[in-house]
């Protein structure tokens, strides 16, 4: 747990929640990013504009962070070790899977769970479990834990 960052996690999560509440209170919409993306791409023209604004705001956020003075600025690190083929396979799975399953970490995880949606609860449990299994297999974490315990 050496990299545990509870304060920034709680603060960042609060902002994500605030964003979801604002979008509901002002526009009456769910802040599910995969759904916003899919509809912004393929929806009727009238459905696109506000979604593109939301997505644009998300893309610009790190640039706003650059205005924060160096010492107070949160880490903008993006550490990716995956090979190009893995990036492509992962991207395809995330893109197709979130549309097929009607949501991702934001739509099901934040908005759906807070509406007490049973569908979202199942989706979250499944994608969390599969994500954990995937990382465990890719990193061999369980194998090394067992090997470490045995030695």
């Amino acid at each position, binding site marked *: 747990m050496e*990299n545990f*960052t*509870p304060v*920034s*996690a709680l*603060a960042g*999560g*609060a*902002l*994500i*929640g605030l964003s*979801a509440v604002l*979008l*509901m*209170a002002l*526009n*009456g*919409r769910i802040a599910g*990013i*995969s759904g916003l993306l*899919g509809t912004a791409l393929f929806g009727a023209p009238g459905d696109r504009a*506000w979604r593109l*604004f939301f997505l644009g705001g*998300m893309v610009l*956020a*790190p640039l*706003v*962070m650059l205005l924060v003075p160096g010492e107070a600025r*949160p880490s903008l*690190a*993006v550490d*990716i070790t*995956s090979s190009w083929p893995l*990036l492509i*396979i992962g*991207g395809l*799975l*995330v*893109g*197709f*899977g*979130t*549309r097929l*399953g*009607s949501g*991702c970490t*934001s739509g099901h995880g*934040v908005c759906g769970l807070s*509406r007490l949606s*049973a569908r979202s609860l*199942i989706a979250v449990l499944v*994608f*969390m479990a*599969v*994500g*954990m*299994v*995937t990382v465990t297999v890719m990193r061999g*974490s369980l194998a090394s*834990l067992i090997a470490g315990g045995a030695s």
Partner: protein
Amino acid sequence: MMRNLAAGLAGLIFGLGLVIAQMTNPAKVLAFLDIFGAWDPSLALVMGSALAITAIGYRLAWRRAGPVLGGEFALPSASQIDVRLAAGAVMFGAGWGLVGLCPGPALTALTIGGPPVWIFGAAMLAGMVAFRFLPAAGAKPA
């Protein structure tokens, strides 16, 4: 126009939240999913915090007859738990675990993550396009 600006502001706040929580860093996300390795529970707090605020805020928002800027509250009506939902979640979980990016962080990291994020983002869009044009899958609105 007000609705667009409100959405832009909400998107900006969402992105700032992701950056502050370091959810734009795949290493951080993978460390959360690596429960048998050097586990980092931070993402659970991000989710918990976001959930608590949303659960309370939604109920306050719903006290009004409709959204402040007009229109109606648009909530998903689907309630069936089916193969489609589960299969989608399995695929998403696998892709998420392979790279450590989900749709929100992938978007927000576009400006700071460089080529790996662009490749992932392009593949993610391709996956959405594939879904759209797969007749059996794309027929139902998602």
